[in-house]
C-alpha cells in the first residue's frame, strides 16, 4: 500500500497521544479507538459501517465532487485505498465492498476505452448513470432514515396512560371473600410472628417444653395440639414444641388421634398398655 497519508492508523502503542491520523471518518459510522490489551495496540472499530454505497457517498462528499459528474478514476483509487486500509486493520471487509470495488474498476476501464465508432450514437449514454442513480437512491433512503429518526425521537417524548387494572389482565382481583380471609390470616400470622420475635428473647428449653406439654395433657386429659402450638411465641419455640410432641409420642406418654383427614389433632395421655 503506497501513500496512505493520513489514513495510516494502526500499530500506535497504547497510551501514545492520539494524533489526527488515528481517526478514520466514515459516513454513518462512529469510529472508536480502543487499546487492545493483549497486543498493546490500538484497534479501530468502525461501529455501524454502512456498506459500499455509504463509503462511496462519503468519499464523493469529502472530495467535494459533483455527484452527477464523478471522476471515476480518482474515486476508484480512493475507494480501493480505503478497502486496503480496512483489510490492513483486520476489519472484516464484507463481500459487498469487494463487489463495489469490482464494479468501480470495470467502470473505470470502460470509460478509458474509446467509444465504439460503429455504435448507434444517438444518445450519449453516461456509463456512470447507473451508479449515480444508485447513489442518489441510497441517499434518499438515508434522508428518509433521518426523518424516521426524528419522528421516533418526538414519539419517545409522548406517553399514553399506563395499563389499567381489569379482571382480564389481573385475575387476582376476582377472588372471593374466603381467599381474601386466607391471605389476611397468613399476613396476620406472619406479622404476629415477627413482632413477637422482636420482643421476646427468652428461650425455653426442650425439657421445659416437654414438661409444659405433659402438664397440659395431664390436667385436661386431652389437648388439642393447635392450642399447644399457639402458645409458642416464636418460630424457635414452635419447633421446640413440635419436637416435644414427637418426643412424648416416642416415649409412649401421649397418643395422637385425628378424627378426620386434615382435622384437628388431639393429644391424650397414653393408656397403660
Amino acid at each position: 500500500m503506497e501513500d496512505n497519508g493520513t489514513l495510516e492508523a494502526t500499530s500506535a502503542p497504547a497510551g501514545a497521544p492520539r494524533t489526527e491520523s488515528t481517526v478514520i471518518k466514515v459516513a454513518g459510522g462512529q469510529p472508536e479507538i480502543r487499546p487492545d490489551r493483549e497486543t498493546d495496540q490500538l484497534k479501530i472499530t468502525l461501529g455501524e459501517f454502512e456498506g459500499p454505497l455509504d463509503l462511496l457517498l462519503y468519499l464523493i462528499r469529502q472530495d467535494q465532487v459533483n455527484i452527477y459528474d464523478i471522476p471515476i478514476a480518482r474515486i476508484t483509487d480512493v475507494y480501493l485505498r480505503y478497502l486496503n486500509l480496512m483489510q490492513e486493520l483486520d476489519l472484516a471487509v464484507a463481500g459487498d465492498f469487494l463487489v463495489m470495488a469490482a464494479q468501480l474498476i470495470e467502470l473505470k476501464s470502460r470509460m478509458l476505452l474509446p467509444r465504439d465508432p460503429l455504435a448507434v450514437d444517438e444518445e450519449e449514454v453516461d456509463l456512470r448513470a447507473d451508479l449515480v442513480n444508485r447513489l442518489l437512491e441510497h441517499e434518499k433512503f438515508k434522508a428518509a432514515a433521518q426523518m424516521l429518526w426524528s419522528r421516533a425521537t418526538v414519539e419517545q417524548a409522548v406517553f399514553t396512560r399506563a395499563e389499567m387494572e381489569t379482571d382480564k389482565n389481573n385475575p387476582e382481583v376476582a377472588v372471593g371473600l374466603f381467599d381474601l380471609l386466607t391471605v389476611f390470616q397468613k399476613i396476620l400470622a406472619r406479622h404476629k410472628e415477627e413482632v413477637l420475635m422482636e420482643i421476646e428473647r427468652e428461650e425455653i428449653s426442650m425439657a421445659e417444653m416437654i414438661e409444659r406439654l405433659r402438664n397440659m395433657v395431664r390436667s385436661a386429659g386431652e389437648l388439642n395440639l393447635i392450642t399447644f402450638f399457639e402458645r409458642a411465641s416464636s418460630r424457635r419455640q414452635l419447633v421446640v414444641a413440635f419436637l416435644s410432641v414427637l418426643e412424648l409420642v416416642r416415649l409412649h406418654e401421649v397418643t395422637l388421634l385425628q378424627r378426620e383427614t386434615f382435622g384437628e389433632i388431639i393429644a391424650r395421655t397414653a393408656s397403660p398398655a
Partner: protein
Amino acid sequence: MIDKAKAARATNDEAGFEIEAAPDSEIIEGHHQVSEAELKSIAEALIFVAEEPISARSIADLIDVETDAVGKAISELVAEYDERNGGLQLREIAGGWQIATRPEHHEHVRIYLKSKPSAKLSLASLETLAVIAYKQPITIPEILEIRGVQSPSAIKTLLDKRLIVAKGRKETVGRPMMYGTSKEFLIQFGLKDLSELPSIEDFRDLAGGES
C-alpha cells in the same frame, strides 16, 4: 303524560344507567338515541380506556350510531383539547384515536415514570426500515439492491421489535418472503397511516441538493 314518563324510565332501566341529555343538544340518529354532547363524552371515555388507538368506526359500532357522527364528535374533542392547550392531546395514530401527553412535558413525565428514552434503532436498522416503509412489500434481495449491503441483523432487529412483518411470498424464483411495516411501526413513529410519510421523491431534492 304519566305513561310517557314511565316508558322513558323503563327504557333507562333497561339500559341500566341514565345519562342526562343536555336540553338543547341535538339527537343523533341511529338505532340508539344519543345526543351530540353525550356522544362526545362517550367517545372520549372510550378513547381514554382503549388499550390501543381506537377507530371512529369501532366507537360507532359500540354505541350503535353512524361513524360520521362519531368522527364529528371527535373533531370537536380535538379542537377542545387544542384550545385548552393542556398536558394532553387527542391525536390520530395508526388508524385510531389516542389520548397522550404532549411531548413538551416529557422531562417531568420521565422523572415520574423513572423511564429513560429506550434504546434507539441503529442507523443500519433505520435505513433498512426506511427502505421497507417506502418500498413495501419488498424482499430481502431487493433491500440489498437498494442499500448495497446485506442487512440480516437489521431485519432481525426490526422483526424482533415487531416494526416489520412478513407479507407473504413473492411469486418469483425461490418465492422469497416479502416484508412490510406493521401497526407497531405507525405507533412508534407517530403516523396516522403510511400516506402520512413524506414522499420519497421529496428526499431526492434534499439528497441531490447537498452535492
